[in-house]
């Protein structure tokens, strides 16, 4: 799967991993402890609350050596972490929905300052109609401000990816904040069997901590952080452009780094995940459905059932949503002749799902290279905590199959509309 070659240290066999049963929020907290951050800042919000409660307990129990800041709100949560990161701290927090909206000002700034902060988004729908249940609307809404965003499918993947997130964020070629998105309700509270890596193995994976190598607030090395940059004349705008460009380059660099880190993880711990785009039963498929996050499990079951019924359907799961994995998607989409995209949020401007909207750009490139336009359609499901069940996915599969020799609808299909 991975196309990146790694310069790997010699990997010794992992110690026996502890098998346990836990919910996704706890798995995330355990992963954070394994990554040894210096500072976590917390403010509770449903459905994230048990995550930070677990973090607080781990610290209180002496199982995690981090400074915990119980800030008065998400805005300060992220601000505290920015200060900590500027002084060299490895930092972590988690939020969702209204909390993410409230912290938007420092959130936007974190990527600009190239601070490798890791933050879980325990995704939540809303904000209005008032809703405390799952949905990707919060994370999707902030997809364009420069954070790496990675979605998880299972509790185990939450644990593994949360650890990996620190390596990705702190990579010198990336230096960007990372969101690990885990679906509210389904992953946050969903309880599953996990294997917990040994701390010493994770320590070996993490290597020597070197967070604050590029920008520092240190009296021993005084500098101004983030002076005003720009202006109508002078060198300001050009300075700004170079800065932005390097930020975009860091985002693109993340694609390779994510792959490499996943490959190393697989080698060290024996669990491999498609780092960017997962292809499921795709190689001989005529058409495919596309998923994101925890819905993928039910979707795979539906694909299996459809295959048994003779439908040549495959599945494409996006794991890394930002940066958008264009090349990996090109390779996957070139294998099929029709596509149905299932979003767990809406894109208000295009009257479709946001992932669908993003994919359209890939389809355009594919069409230019292959000469054929791949028909595609948008499905929106799982809003406000609704379940996207196997029957729902059968509807998706059937509708997508009809694209092979029928017209493509311009309206999205709202899966839970009549549940």
């Amino acid at each position, binding site marked *: 799967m991975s196309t990146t070659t790694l310069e790997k240290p010699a990997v010794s066999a992992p110690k026996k991993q502890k098998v346990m049963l836990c919910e996704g929020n706890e798995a995330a907290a355990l992963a954070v402890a394994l990554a040894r951050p210096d500072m976590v800042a917390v403010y509770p919000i449903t459905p994230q609350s048990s995550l930070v409660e677990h973090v607080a307990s781990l610290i209180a129990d002496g199982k995690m050596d981090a400074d915990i*800041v*119980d*800030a008065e709100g998400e805005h300060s949560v992220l601000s505290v*972490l920015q200060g900590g990161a500027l002084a060299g*701290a490895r930092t972590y927090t988690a939020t969702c929905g209204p909390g993410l909206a409230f912290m938007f000002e420092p959130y936007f700034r974190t990527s600009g300052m190239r601070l490798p902060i890791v933050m879980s988004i325990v995704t939540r729908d809303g904000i209005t109609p008032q809703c405390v249940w799952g949905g990707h609307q919060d994370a999707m809404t902030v997809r364009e401000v420069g954070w790496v965003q990675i979605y998880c499918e299972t509790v185990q993947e939450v644990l593994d990816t949360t650890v990996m997130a620190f390596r990705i964020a702190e990579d010198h070629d990336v230096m960007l904040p990372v969101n690990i998105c885990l679906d509210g309700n389904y992953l946050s509270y969903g309880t599953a069997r996990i294997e917990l890596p040994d701390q010493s193995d994770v320590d070996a994976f993490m290597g020597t901590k070197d967070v604050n190598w590029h920008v520092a607030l240190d009296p021993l090395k*005084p500098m*101004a952080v983030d*002076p005003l940059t720009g*202006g109508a004349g002078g060198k300001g705008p050009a300075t700004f452009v170079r800065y932005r460009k390097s930020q975009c380059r860091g985002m693109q660099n993340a694609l390779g780094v994510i792959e490499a880190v996943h490959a190393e993880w697989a080698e060290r711990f024996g669990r491999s995940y498609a780092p960017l785009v997962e292809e499921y039963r795709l190689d001989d498929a005529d058409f495919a459905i596309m998923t994101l996050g925890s819905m993928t499990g039910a979707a795979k079951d539906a694909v299996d059932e459809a295959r048994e019924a003779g439908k040549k359907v495959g599945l494409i799961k996006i794991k890394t949503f930002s940066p958008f994995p264009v090349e990996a998607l090109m390779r996957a989409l070139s294998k099929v002749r029709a596509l149905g995209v299932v979003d767990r949020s809406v894109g208000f401007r295009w009257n479709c799902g946001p992932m669908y909207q993003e994919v359209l750009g890939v389809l355009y490139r594919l069409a230019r290279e292959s000469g054929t336009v791949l028909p595609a359609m948008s499905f929106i499901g799982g809003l406000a905590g609704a379940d996207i069940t196997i029957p729902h996915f059968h509807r998706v599969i059937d509708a997508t199959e009809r694209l092979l020799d029928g017209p493509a609808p311009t309206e999205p299909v709202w899966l839970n509309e009549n549940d």
Partner: protein
Amino acid sequence: MGRAYSTIAFDPAKCDGCGDCMTACAQAKTGTDDWARSRIQIVGRGNATQDAIRDAIEDATEKAFELALCRQCADPKCVTVCPAGALAKDGASGVIGWDASKCVDCLLCTVGCAYGGIALDEVSGHVSKCDTCDGKPACVPVCSKGALTYVTTANIYNEVGDWEDLFAPGLAGCQGCNTELLMRHTLRRVGPDTVLATPPGCVPGMGSVGFNGTTGTKVPVFHPLLTNTAAMLAGVKRQFKRMGRDVTALAIAGDGGASDVGFQSLSGAAERGEQMLFMVVDNEGYMNTGMQRSSCTPYGAWTSTTPIGAGCSAGQPAQGKTQDAKNLPLLMVNHRCAYVATASTAYMEDLYAKLDRAIEASKTGFAYVHVYSPCTTGWRFPSDQNMEVARKAVETNFVMLWEFTPSEGLRFSRSVDDPLPVTDYLKAMGRFRHLSPEQIEHIQGKVVENSKFIQRFSEQAHGG
């Protein structure tokens, strides 16, 4: 090489000619009560005899007294005309000393001085002059009217003059702005082992965080958001503490960024006892961006978002801000911060004393210093009047100078008794020019109310 000296200052407006200073001086220097032998001489403007001075006090409508006293000149004529080398300016104290063993009683010094600062004591037969009683002038403490003060602010200059100014030269503050002065003094005092946070406003606006990759500060400095200064700085401080490094976290923020949009993070950091020194430079509005109203803008003040409108001349009510100012330092008191103080650049010694306490408090908790900072541009007064406006604000109780710790409670560092009428402050600047008598009455009422309100804190602490 330059040195500043302490000096006896005289405010003729406060002198009622009681002569207590002359009695004290005569007693201290001659052991008598003979005013003629006092080295400080209160001079009546109208009639000059001692009896007439007393008469003038009794029916004075205008307090009209002046002073003949050695000014300890920097370029002393008395010294240059002394043929015997008996007079010399002391380089350390600045006092012009008289050496009896060298003096030949020729009186040429009295011919040299144009201020009546050195004169013949006919009883001793020698000249006599003020020697400031070795830095403890006897005349000053007996002046019950506050007309005489011993100004020792020079000590600050002498002490801090050699400390490194940690801001770059040439910051682009408005003409007459005292914020630059305040910043430079503050950072000098806090020292180089500091991380400075300064949110959008006048402080970075004049270039302290620099532009386009430059910096204006010699310590690490950053722009937080207008909203998150205290939170971001807390993160910095916590990490240095975790690393075992003793670094002072200093914020210099405007009143808008602290009392309005930044208040939540300020309050949160104070409640958590984050270890930092948070200084608010209160110029009572968003002055850097064009003088808009903040919640610290006082009632009646013109700002660009609380305009006067058509005004009285058009038959409309005079306006300006229609709400009273938020008292941010009192809110901080109610957070039980490790230290809270108000200060003014017109009272630099007081400011420095408070800075010292605040720095100390910031090692264990949240220290908050609120500095009242007149804005030459936004308040509309001549650029040479900043200190005077700052002083009048204090003298009228429009603002009050105090400090608070949870264990000692609130203590005034300058008496709030006998304030000047608030009009003395209001008339010093253009932003209040439109006020109607009713508005002035409202402001005067609020001054009294505020003073009483804060006095209650003080009384609770000190058993009133």
